[in-house]
């Protein structure tokens, strides 16, 4: 008994989802920020940047985490007021739940007071990171 209907349904749904996924990965979105949550040096184990900090949540089963880490850590080398901190999501589940992080890599952009101003799921583009950082005063 041959049936093509399930195959057609699976391919149609996953194609639609795949395009949505490709489009949204890496985009830095301010409306996704969790309001009222403060990140500080005590929680992160490292001092914040004097103007901005990029807190990257990573996991072991995540290929783009490495590329994101390379990009962001290399970018902050020439910035003395911005820091990049990588956090292992798995060993900080409480924080992950509070910030409602669902996938890795997720990078939270916080200002000098530790307030989230935007976040990106997936590897952001260099220009977008620069633009997002420029908006943090």
């Amino acid at each position: 008994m041959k049936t093509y209907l399930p195959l057609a349904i699976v391919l149609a749904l996953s194609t639609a989802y795949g395009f949505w996924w490709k489009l949204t990965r890496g985009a830095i979105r301010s409306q996704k920020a969790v309001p009222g949550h403060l990140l500080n040096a005590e929680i992160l184990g490292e001092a914040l940047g004097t103007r901005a900090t990029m807190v990257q949540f990573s996991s072991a089963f995540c290929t783009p985490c490495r590329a994101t880490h390379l990009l962001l850590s290399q970018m902050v080398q020439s910035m003395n007021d911005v820091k990049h901190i990588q956090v292992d999501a798995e060993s900080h589940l409480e924080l992950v739940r509070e910030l409602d992080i669902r996938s890795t890599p997720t990078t939270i952009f916080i200002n000098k007071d530790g307030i989230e101003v935007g976040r990106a799921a997936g590897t952001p583009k260099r220009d977008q990171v620069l633009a997002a950082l420029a908006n943090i005063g």
Partner: protein
Amino acid sequence: MSDVLKNDDVAKIYIDARGPRFGATITTIVLAIALVTQNKWVLVAQGVVFLIGAVKGPQFTPYGLIFKNVVKPRLKGVAPTEDVRPPKFAQAVGFGFALVAAIGAFAGADLVFTIAVGMALAAAFLNAAFNYCLGCEMYLVLIRALRK
């Protein structure tokens, strides 16, 4: 803060990143055949491939060996590498779906077979067509749900 990620005890093996994606393409075709023909033995064969990939690594599956011996010698350019753990995780998820599908098929529950094969096919297709990272999207959601 990132102790676990930097832990050297966690064996870090880097493989050619194009290998798992080639494997996902073959997997997509095999699972599509299983879904269309409703043939449980095609699914069982794919399940064995998933098991090898999950336990030993995707580079040791038949698809990985075809990639290494037939495809890779014909590819040009510098091989992009990736940590073996994300594709291993994806293979384990695939094995989970295949196991559910096989139990469904042998118990006579055709709908369970169709849905589980459909889920595995969706994951393999997303990986092949969009370079979808299953570990990125599923792992955190899973441990958030399973751990207190």
